């Protein structure tokens, strides 16, 4: 569905992505694993149009996304749940959600119906609908960030490290939500450091190391422990 081919992105002279290619398949959860500094967030921001790729191409069902502005990309249905959630702290939960639907603000009845759906999905957000988002707990803010992204009616949902900074029990809750979204047939691209948790849910996964994709496949095809240890610790597991 979303094809990424030989994407290169740099910060000044420092190359962060050195030719990344991967496929995000329709109706599945594609996961990108990798250690800190591998370029995972850079890839998300490049797809979202916040960072500009120097070369390479990204196509959504054959339609070129490379070089488009971020708000246009959202309009095409590629929607990001950013790392650290980035909710609007001084806006109410309800306004945060409505802001998520900004690209389709003309469709007022549709937006209101989706708002109701999201509040149905996350009853905790309904309880706090009139509260400022800055007063929510980390887990609630993550739910809000997911809900806000859903308000844009995503065709592809990009999720950047949804487990960052959350207590283990909350992380499980967030992953349950991700699993539920996957089961609804949504297309999800999940970037995670929490490899074990992510692999439980992934249909496909890739490994990103120092700006290169070093592995791509299905969970269960290979010895994960071996791969992960290698990627994260930079050494082969003693055998």
């Amino acid at each position, binding site marked *: 569905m979303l094809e990424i081919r030989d994407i290169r992105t740099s910060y000044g002279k420092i190359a962060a992505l050195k030719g990344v290619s991967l496929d995000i398949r329709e109706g599945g959860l594609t996961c990108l694993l990798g250690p800190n500094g591998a370029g995972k967030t850079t890839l998300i921001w490049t797809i*979202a*149009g*916040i960072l500009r790729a120097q070369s390479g191409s990204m196509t959504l069902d054959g339609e070129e996304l490379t070089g488009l*502005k*971020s*708000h246009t990309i*959202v*309009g095409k249905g590629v*929607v*990001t749940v*950013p790392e650290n959630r*980035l*909710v*609007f*702290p*001084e*806006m109410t939960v309800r*306004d945060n959600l*409505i*802001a*998520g639907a*900004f*690209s389709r*603000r003309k469709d007022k009845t549709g937006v209101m119906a989706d708002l109701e759906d999201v509040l149905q999905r996350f009853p905790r957000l309904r309880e706090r609908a009139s509260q400022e988002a800055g007063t929510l707990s980390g887990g609630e803010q993550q739910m809000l960030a997911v809900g*806000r*992204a859903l308000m*844009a009616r995503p065709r592809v949902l990009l999720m950047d490290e949804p487990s960052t900074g959350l207590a283990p029990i909350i992380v499980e809750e967030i992953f349950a939500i991700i699993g539920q979204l996957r089961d609804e047939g949504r297309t999800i691209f999940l970037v995670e450091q929490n490899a074990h948790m992510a692999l439980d849910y992934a249909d496909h996964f890739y490994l990103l190391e120092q700006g290169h994709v070093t592995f791509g496949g299905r969970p269960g095809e290979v010895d994960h422990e071996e791969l992960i240890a290698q990627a994260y610790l930079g050494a082969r597991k003693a055998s």
Partner: protein
Amino acid sequence: MDYFFFIDLLQSLTDGLLFGTTYALIGIGFTLIFGVMRKLNLAYGAASLAGTYIGLLAFLNLGAPPALVFVISALGAGVIGLVVYYCCFRFTPETVPMASLLASVGMLLFIDEVVVHLSHGMPYPYPSVFRDSVIEIGEVWVRGDLLFVFLMCVVAMGVLFWLLHRTPLGLATRAVSQQPRAAQLCGIDSARVNALTFVIAGVLGGVAGAMTAAAVGVLSPIIAMGLTVKGLIVVVIGGLGSIPGAIIGGLLVGAAENIFLLLRGVTERDIYVMLLLFLFLTLRPGGLFGAHAGRD
């Protein structure tokens, strides 16, 4: 305390609070622009005054009625605000804050020169309304023209509040000022929001400029300096980035100014306003409403 002195004090306070709403508007303008871009637009006061001059042109050349002159002043300042955005902010690198700051200083000087040359540095009569009407509340006189200034500024604030809290554009503006990255990820075109914020701030500045001129019945190029300096004092006192802060700060500066005027005379008035600024910078640098936590 002497009874008549007390009445004088009340009178000064009333005039100051009424006129202080123009300072509040200018402060709001600085704060709005800072809110979405985290950058200071030092050309703002001059741009607002230039808009007022556009209204004056309509008054002198076409004999436009006061209401129309005020509207043209406000809209003119909105257009000039947009020009300032494109000249000083749109294309300057985001990572070099000094670039847009100095560009806006250049713009301040440029606009000032243009206004001084076109007006030959001379003051011109500017339409004023309700000059001769006065409402007496006990011993205190509420001047009709000042009351009009006050009401117009309050209406401008009301419209701004409605824009910010009841329209999609306002939602986008608040989103960009609270979390610019996330705003982009919500599909908000932040460059467009920035441009529109400059227009809205410009219109508010134009209202402030027109009302400043209407309160004295004269438009003079030196008002630019007053708008710029007072506006900055207001945002320092109120807290840069806070709209309620700008309103309180504006009223406070207006009131303090008039009380110093009464106590120490016109020559010393501004010294004490500056001292007030100094006090705030030393004791409460974040302003009354504190600085917001940094972005990201």
